[in-house]
């Protein structure tokens, strides 16, 4: 009997061991998001992005896997100094967006992501592209808001966009402040931080708020 128990215990252990060898998508995402959260500039982001690519490739049917793929590519495009490459990153982000569309996923996160990607595309050549991508950015934020007005990223993205709009065109720190505050309010409503619900933006929002208040 003792042997049976021992064997059984061993069996359970080994099964667990096998399970441990096979992390879930969430585990994978967590690991990669952790890299993004601590990343300082390009190298960390590139590493995370490579990981997200692998996850997205493995979990083709999961919109969230594609989501993070697109998200990091968009962020990378902001950091990339080479203008020609910036567009290539946004192209990759767009390819992920197409996959999400193919999966038929429609939620506030997807629209926020679309707004972010449009903004990244615009930022490559703001002077010549704001007319085309500005409205796409706004449109997607609007749709996100219709689906979930408590998504803080809507206000965060809008705030950043207003922040970088020149003062004479009705932008600037002062005009952006209420949006950052609104985003803060909404971030506070988020009770848990799980990779299964994209939560990026809060520390940056805090940073901007500090800057805006200092002005």
């Amino acid at each position, binding site marked *: 009997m003792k*042997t049976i128990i021992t064997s059984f215990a061993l069996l359970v252990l*080994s099964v667990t061991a096998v399970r441990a060898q096979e992390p879930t998508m969430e585990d994978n995402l967590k690991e990669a998001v952790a890299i993004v959260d601590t990343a300082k500039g*390009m190298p960390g982001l*590139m590493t995370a992005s490579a990981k997200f690519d692998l996850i997205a490739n*493995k979990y083709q049917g999961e919109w969230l896997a594609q989501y993070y793929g697109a998200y990091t590519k968009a962020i990378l495009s902001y950091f990339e100094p080479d203008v020609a490459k910036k567009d*290539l990153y946004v192209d990759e982000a767009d390819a992920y967006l197409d996959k999400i569309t193919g999966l038929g996923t429609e939620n506030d996160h997807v629209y926020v992501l679309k707004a972010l990607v449009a903004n990244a595309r615009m930022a490559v050549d703001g002077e*010549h592209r704001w007319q085309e991508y500005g409205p796409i950015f*706004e449109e997607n934020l609007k749709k996100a808001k219709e689906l979930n007005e408590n998504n803080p990223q809507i206000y965060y993205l809008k705030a950043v966009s207003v922040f970088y709009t020149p003062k004479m065109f009705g932008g600037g720190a002062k005009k952006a402040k209420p949006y950052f505050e609104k985003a803060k309010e909404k971030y506070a409503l988020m009770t848990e931080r799980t990779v299964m619900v994209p939560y990026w933006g809060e520390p940056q929002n805090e940073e901007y708020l500090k800057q805006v208040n200092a002005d």
Partner: protein
Amino acid sequence: MTKRVTKTLFSFISLLLLTLVSATSFAQSTIKGEVKNQKGEPVGFASVFIQNTVDGTTTGVDGKFSFTTNLKGPQTLVVNLIGFNKSTQSLNLTDSVYTVTVQLQESAKHLEEVTITAGTIEANNDRSVAVLKPLDIVTTAGAQADVIGAIQTLPGVQRNGGDQTGLMVRGGDVNESSVIVDGTVTQNAFNSSVPGVAQRSRLNPFAFKGTAFSSGGYTVRYGQALSAVLDLQTTDLPEKNNMNIGAHFAGAYISGSKLMGKNAVEYAANYTNIAPYLLVADANVDFYDVPQGGGISTRFVSRTENNGIFKMNLTHSFNKSGITIPDPSTAGATFDFGIRNENTLLTTSYKYFINEHTKLFSAFSFSNNADKISWGAAPVYRNDGRLQGRVELWWETKERKFNLLVGSDVQRFDYTQRFDTLIGQFDELLSAGYVEAEWKPILWFAIKPGVRGEYSQLLAKGNIVPRAAFAFRTGEASQVSAATGVFYQTAPINYLMQGYRPDFQQSIHYMLNYQWMKKDRTLRVEAYYKSYDQLVRENGTAYTPNQFRFDLGMVDNSGSGYAQGIDFFWRDRKSIKNFDYWISYSYVDTKRLYQNYLDKVTPDYVSDHNLNVIAKYFIMKWQTNISASYNYASGRPFYNPNSTAFLSEKSPDFHNFSVTISYLTTIRRMFTVFYLSLDNVTNQKNVLGYRYSADGTQRFPILPPMYRSVFLGVNFSLTEFNKDEL
């Protein structure tokens, strides 16, 4: 027994599982190595992974990588990085250490496709070559917010001292260039000409989204211009409802647009009166009837299925003025020139995508222009009209390596002039057909051959001309382009109106262009040679420098000439933040024997050297844009009857320094711009040439209509704002 069996079984299973587990967890393969580019340099941040798994890593800055995997058997190792082609290789994993060296090839996608640039300076939405966008045009000092004024700062264009109406390109006179809007020729692109006083164009800079200025070797889509074509595209659907109100030293205007889903209606009205402008300008001509005018226009734009677009524009304008100007027929004398002009223009265009790779374009335009002139005591009546249609089909292959354009345009135009009792009249029907192909067999090479056939009913003659352009990419940011072609144009209207029917005039262009473009810095150098043949010539009359002469003698096509030169353009918007400057320099060597010329000489409108330096600086803190421009043109030849050689003397050099300051702000949600322009700040007393009295004893300077002038204005634009997002 059963117990034992069970026990043994359990032990066996456990053991089996344990072995399995240990096999997976402890028998690993290590894959390590290095990623390099074609030059053998390490490639950092490349992603290295086993296909369809999450096993992988990224390379360090030294290009090195290492990771472990529990996978076994045949696998595919993928190395990937933006800007490079994906590399794959097979590995058969059997629990050991693998060292791999991967060489990545830079992807062709990173290189921009070659585009044909010889002759054409293009500015559309995404390519910032030598972009002259609306804001560029209105903020260019010295351009007087005129499209043509801004075009004059580009290389190859002759600086107009202020006495000629039109665009003079590479040795060509004002008759040799054509202005195209949405595919049809704008017959009255400029306000009606006044002798010796340059007129503004009727083109509103804010109406256009794209400008393609071709200083030669242009596409077979157009003809009837020996020198150049300015091809403009009007804006598409406005983004939002908006309204613009403005006032300046020469009048006031209002414009706006109303967006209704995929359709929009736009409207504009203006009143001009240059009295305030004249008050502070240092004018050399006397206005006895201050120029006044008004115009209304309306436009309908509709976005159709498959991204097609339909545009229709109707404009009507009225202008009148009275000026005392130097008499072109008698040097030293002045006379009163009064003009009342009415102009109507209707244009429509429709672009329709039959499918992703096939496009149908059609355009139609109608214009009517009437001038009532009092030439001293004599009344002159001028009327001209034009009807034009164009249809073209464009098709490209799926890989977009080859495309073909087939089209046709038909233009009917007529001119009538009555000077006292003299009546001049003609009408012409020009029909043309054209085919043009563009082939990019490889990323770094493009070829664009074309043929245009044209038939003139007036001359009962036709011609078929070949044209071709090539481009080679020579580096990541540079390319070499070449263009050639044959161009025909009928004689200027003053000959046709008097009943002369000389043959087509001809010009052949050869041009070689080098362009380097990187990160908002552009360098263009273009060398060209043009030959002119069959130019119109008057025989059997004495020479007079009067452009408005009536006695043209016997007219034939015995004229000829050439123009050769080099154009240089440099624009840099990158080096200093918020600072944009461009330098254009042109050298032209041209001679021609045409019209009433006595000899093959450099024509009297040509300056051999033209230099423009334009700088714009935006001071963020003050929300102020400062633009300054300096224009230099070497002296132009003028006619001195006492001189032994024809047109051998030259006027002094032309200098002009202008400044425009604009202040941008938001007043109660209205985007507001205040602007102040000072043209010829230093009040340089330019002399454009001299005219001699009939006996040659007295000489009179030809002066620009204005020396220093001041222009002040404000523009408010109100865009429908989003309801508060908060």
